[in-house]
């Protein structure tokens, strides 16, 4: 079963392994909850910064948006335990030296984050032209797991293969990892492309993503966070929720809303509209996640 649902419906799902949304948080310093004595924690999702992109009609502040995001994350009242970056850190290039330079610059910028634990994932712009080789030199493995306060995180690479596939070897690795988890384990999957067929006409899919989803189905508490589509999208495949993040460079239109996939032009009256990042509160006792969406604001200068 696959279902597209809106925020209102998700609010209804809260408390049954679902999600609570908060948005329009511009100007607020961030959530501050008494989580010290619990296993609850925050993590921030950043995505699709496309460092190196140029195009004034889409983002005249291409060199400043990521820097502003870093500043805004640092200004959160409750600092996250860690940050995840779900791909397309840099804009694609055929020139390996330019790719290296962009990754070096990107790494320098995000080193200014106060939270020092950052888990990176590649997007197709970072990894698809050289099978992830340059990316690995800068950021390490493209798929891995880690555990934090009772939550098992799995980063899946669906971009180093330019066909947009996970591949049999990684699927075997995933199967072996899941075999070690309890049926009621809290599992968070991080990836770049949607694992489900969101809109294959725009390449918003993972060719063998259904195999990964099938493997996760026996587990009660699985939530997927991903990037790639440059906008919020909330989708259910059975009981598994999939949440995409906004971009830190350019917003994209909803799937199929125009004949060709083109970035949404910059709005002079609403600069940075559609861009931003996400703060996630993991609430272990409730088996749910509270998502807070933060825009990029003009005054977040550095």
């Amino acid at each position: 079963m696959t279902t597209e649902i809106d925020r209102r419906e998700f609010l209804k799902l809260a408390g049954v392994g679902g999600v609570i949304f908060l948005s329009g948080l511009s100007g607020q310093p961030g959530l501050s909850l008494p989580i010290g004595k619990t296993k609850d924690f925050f993590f921030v999702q950043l995505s699709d910064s496309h460092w190196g992109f140029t195009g004034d009609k889409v983002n005249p502040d291409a060199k400043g948006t990521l820097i502003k995001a870093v500043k805004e994350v640092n200004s959160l009242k409750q600092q996250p335990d860690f940050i995840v970056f779900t791909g397309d850190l840099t804009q694609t290039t055929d020139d390996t030296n330019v790719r290296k330079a962009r990754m070096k610059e990107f790494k320098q910028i995000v080193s200014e984050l106060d939270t020092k634990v950052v888990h990176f994932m590649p997007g197709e712009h970072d990894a698809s032209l050289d099978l992830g080789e340059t990316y690995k030199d800068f950021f390490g493995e493209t798929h891995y797991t880690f555990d934090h306060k009772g939550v098992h995180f799995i980063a899946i690479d669906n971009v180093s293969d330019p066909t947009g596939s996970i591949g049999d070897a990684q699927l075997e690795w995933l199967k072996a990892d899941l075999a070690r988890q309890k049926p009621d384990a809290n599992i968070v999957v991080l990836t770049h492309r949607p694992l489900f067929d969101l809109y294959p006409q725009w390449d918003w899919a993972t060719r063998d993503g259904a195999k990964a989803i099938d493997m996760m189905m026996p587990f009660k508490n699985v939530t997927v966070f991903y990037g790639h589509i440059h906008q919020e999208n909330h989708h259910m495949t059975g009981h598994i929720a999939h949440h995409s993040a906004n971009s830190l460079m350019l917003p994209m239109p909803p799937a199929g809303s125009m004949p060709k996939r083109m970035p949404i032009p910059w709005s002079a009256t609403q600069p940075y509209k559609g861009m931003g990042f996400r703060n996630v509160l993991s609430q272990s006792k409730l088996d749910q996640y509270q998502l807070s969406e933060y825009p990029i604001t003009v005054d977040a200068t550095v």
Partner: protein
Amino acid sequence: MIKRIGIAVIVVASLLGMNCLRADSDDGAKIVKISAKRFEYSPEEITLKKGVPVVLQLTTEDRSHGFNVPSMNLRADIMPGKVTELKVTPQKAGDFDFFCDIYCGSGHEGMSGKIKVTE
């Protein structure tokens, strides 16, 4: 001498790959050629007739590309040095977009074309 020229013509035809000399496939279906290169297909629009079988003959001029027509349930990898054939009999009239689904660089997102199916 005449015999030698005859043989030469046959050899050239073979080297050209038969395809350029052949309008129909072995089973009589019309062949439609589509060539891919970063970041375009040529032609980028083809017209087919509903219910009439054709063979799409796909080649690439540079690197690997994809050919994906989700609304017709058609897809193939186009690999360098190979001719990929897809047999199709359109069942519905209308416009059907195809696109590259093997990442090929900075213009990949715009690499697409259209199949027009007429009644």
